[in-house]
Every structure is written in C-alpha cells, then in structure tokens.
C-alpha cells in the first residue's frame, strides 16, 4: 500500500501485473481518519467486520476488491 507520484507511475511500476485499486490521496486521508481515529482511545474496542466494511463504504470504497473476509 504505497503512495505514487501519479497513476502513470503506478502503471509503470506494475509492468503488466494486474492492478489493485487506485485511490486519491484525499480519499486515503479520509479513510485513515475513520479507520484509525479511535485507535488510541482508552475505551477502544475491536471493530467488527461490519463496522470496517461500513467505513470503507463511507468513503466510496465498495465492490469486490474492498469486500472484507
């Protein structure tokens, strides 16, 4: 899970391998807030799969690629 200069750099780096998912850095930052924001709370409890799936969907990450096990 890396940052790239642009989509073109991702494609070049993949060198023909199947791409995963490309996300804007703005969406990534939004996702990080929702996914990790509670991680240091003294009352933290493990997220359920459903909670995590809802976080992904909340920033527009839906479909088979983003389906948690």
């Amino acid at each position, binding site marked *: 899970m890396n940052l790239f*200069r642009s989509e073109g750099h991702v494609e070049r780096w993949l060198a023909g391998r199947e791409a995963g998912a490309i996300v804007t850095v703005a969406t990534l930052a939004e996702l990080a807030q929702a996914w990790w924001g509670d991680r240091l709370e003294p009352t933290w409890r493990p997220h359920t799969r459903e909670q995590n799936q809802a976080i992904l969907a909340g920033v527009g990450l839906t479909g088979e690629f983003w389906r948690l096990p």
Partner: protein
Amino acid sequence: MVDAADVELRNATYATFVELGRAPSSAETAERVRGEPAAVRAGWRRLHEAHALVLDDSGELRMANPFSAVPTRHRVRAAGRSWWANCAWDAFGICAALHVDGRVESSCPDCGEALAVEVRDGRPDDESLVFHCLVPAARWWDDIVFT
C-alpha cells in the same frame, strides 16, 4: 479468543508505544501493566491471532497498527516525534490516531522520488498523489507484512 483483559493489555501497549515513541518490549509492557513478561507475550499472541497487533518471529511487536516497530518506506513527523508507518494508509492513520497535524514522508516505488504531504485537520495539502492498494481486502491478512 480475545477477552476484556487482552483488550486492556492492547490499550496499555498502544499507550506505552506513544509515550516512548517506539515499540515497547514485552518486558517494558509487563512493567507498565505490573504483570509478568510471559503473560504479556501470551496476551500479545492472542491479540496477534485476532489481528489486533502483529508480532515478529521472536514474539515481540512488529506492528501496532498504524505504527510500525521497524523502519519502513513511510515516515511520519507528528506530535514532536518521528514515527514509522506500516504503509501509506497507516501513515495518514498515525496523524488520525494521534489527532494531530503532521507530515507524511514516503517515496514513489516507481521512480524513487521523495514524496511529502502535510496533513492539516486530516486533509492532505497535495492532492496530486495517488494511493495504490495491490492486494484485495479479502486477502490483506494472508500476509499483512506484504500487504
């Protein structure tokens, strides 16, 4: 199976990580929770199995996600310290978890160019960059270090 005591151990581990600015050893964590190192390692193992943290082969911390216990491509400057993140997602997650602004530093795997993003109020100042996730969500934990 993780129980309430394991969650308390996990929360104490994370608090110690942030206080020290690095991963605590099992011995340091045992001191923090006034327990035995063997009990900490056993609790960490259950948390590892539950994907609440990640241990290395010796049973010490490898990841307290989003924090990395070892140097990586992704460095974060925040809260007056420098932190290592496990991936780009986690790099932004460190600012989110600490609830502070920060600076994410990484490099493009294609061209090697250094990349830096200032995060203010949770938002990046350079939206020209992109994030690539190679592994589908269903397989993230098959090999979390690779993911």
